[in-house]
């Protein structure tokens, strides 16, 4: 616990850590302002297909809708922000030279690595929670509350979730979002154990995320067979909480696959770092 406290202190003492929070705040703020100004136009284009057949009334563009809308971009910008810190967690010590002080202390490399990994997860969770709180806290006064009506992307269907159910579903969705983002953190952390500076882990992680997103969408039989095992396939598991009825089994399976990725990546990181010679 002491090691975790020390790692967290170091991480949150650096201004670089807060870049991500600042960027997220800017994204949320800008999106909400733009939505406030041109909500009707956006809704019009999103619901175009339905407006011939349905009359949609009430406060559709409410805080929950905006939050879900912004969450859809989660797998693009948040992974990058996570890698800024998780990718630097171990390699940053090599860059700074502090690794030579750190690893000659009594705690084993594994214990130090555990503390660093926990800090990376803590930061990831903090970032997603900050994102959630900001969306809701800014959204409620700007757009008010209401039922959540969402158009499923790529499908001719509308999902309706009553207002009373939304806070609970939002909570679960953000918990799932944290879980999916921890895989990105684990990946960046693994690369961080292999590198001597943070540039490699940041670029490497983003390259892997982009590659797997592309592979998962290629219409080739080979990738279609592998797609169920790609972490990118399951990163949007949080969307399952915004279906008419929650498909627990599918969400559970996705969570399990992501968990296995986390465990596997951390195991490899541990093996790599415990065997690593510190030459820097």
């Amino acid at each position: 616990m002491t090691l975790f406290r020390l790692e967290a202190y170091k991480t949150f003492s650096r201004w670089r850590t807060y870049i991500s929070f600042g960027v997220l705040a800017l994204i949320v703020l800008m999106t909400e302002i733009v939505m406030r100004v041109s909500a009707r136009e956006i809704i019009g284009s999103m619901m175009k297909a339905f407006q011939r057949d349905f009359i949609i009334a009430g406060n559709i563009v409410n805080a929950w809708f905006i939050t879900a809308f912004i969450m859809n971009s989660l797998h693009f910008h948040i992974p990058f922000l996570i890698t800024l810190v998780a990718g630097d967690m171990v390699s940053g010590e090599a860059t700074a030279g502090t690794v030579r002080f750190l690893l000659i202390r009594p705690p084993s490399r594994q214990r130090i690595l555990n503390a660093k990994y926990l800090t990376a997860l803590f930061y990831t969770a903090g970032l997603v929670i900050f994102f959630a709180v900001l969306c809701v806290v800014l959204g409620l006064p700007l757009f008010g509350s209401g039922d959540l009506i969402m158009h499923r992307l790529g499908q001719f269907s509308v999902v309706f979730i009553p207002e009373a159910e939304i806070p609970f579903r939002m909570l679960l969705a953000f918990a799932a979002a944290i879980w999916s983002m921890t895989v990105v953190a684990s990946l960046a952390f693994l690369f961080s154990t292999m590198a001597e500076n943070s540039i490699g882990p940041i670029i490497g992680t983003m390259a892997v995320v982009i590659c797997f997103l592309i592979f998962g969408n290629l219409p080739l039989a080979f990738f279609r067979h592998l797609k169920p095992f790609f972490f990118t396939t399951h990163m949007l598991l949080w969307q399952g909480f915004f279906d008419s009825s929650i498909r627990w089994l599918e969400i559970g399976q996705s969570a399990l696959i992501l968990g296995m990725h986390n465990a596997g990546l951390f195991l490899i990181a541990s093996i790599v770092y415990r065997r690593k010679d510190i030459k820097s």
Partner: protein
Amino acid sequence: MEAVLKTFGLGKRFGMRWAARGIDLEVHRGDIFCFLGPNGAGKSTTIRMILTLLKPTAGTIQLFGKDLHKNRCSVLSRVCGIVEKSDFYLFLSAYKNLEILGSMTRRIKRDEVMEALERVGLIARAWDKVRTFSHGMKQRLGIAQALLTRPELIILDEPTTGLDPQGMKDVRELIQRLARDEGITIFLSSHLLSEIEQVATRMAVIHRGEMKAQGSVAELLASEAIDYAIQVSPIEAALRVMQGIPWAQVLSCGESMIEVRLEPGHASELNKLLIANGIEVASLYPRRTLEDFFLRVTKGVAEI
């Protein structure tokens, strides 16, 4: 004499190249033990193995009589080290750096951090960020963090590298004070012979990854023939006396100075002999230095 650090056949191979091989060190309690070698000789590699930064390819390490590999946590809590230059978290203050690094060994109180800073003369800069420190100040802060954990053995890898003359002197004095006043065993590597002559009680020489010599500085220097410069008058008579002595070899002769190589322990005997033969001896002093010794054991190819 209790051995604080012992290595047995320690070796490290990078690819096909052995950076260090067959290193058998023995550091006794209270020693200021200097590990001497030219750049690239394998000093840092050996130190990194002792401090667990590198995994040895061969051999074992004992600290305080215990196997390092099997008792890592307990033995490393009694050791502290600085490998090459002292690097800290630049975005944190000197105080916070010491608190963080010290807390990894044991619970650290504020007063202990301040005391360590005071001992290295950095108390006035306790709350300044380390990024504003000079190289010398960082080295002293490095020693402060070593002291904070109350170690029995401090391992320093070229602690004066990059320091100005005053900084080098400060660090040397600090090392001597720690050994003399606090009984801390010091193991330090260096390629600076003058530094070793000034502080070392025992030393080992490493060259091209292999140990060349080990022992007390006085023993090593006294173990073989030593060159002396003798100022005498008349010089011809002195030469005649010396030519008949089996343990003296005249190396060169000037107007009033003779350079002679003597077997160990014969300097005073030669002095008496010259005086007994009516020769005036103005001075007789050894020209044998650590540098000669070092160049001899490294076969004169060392670049120091």
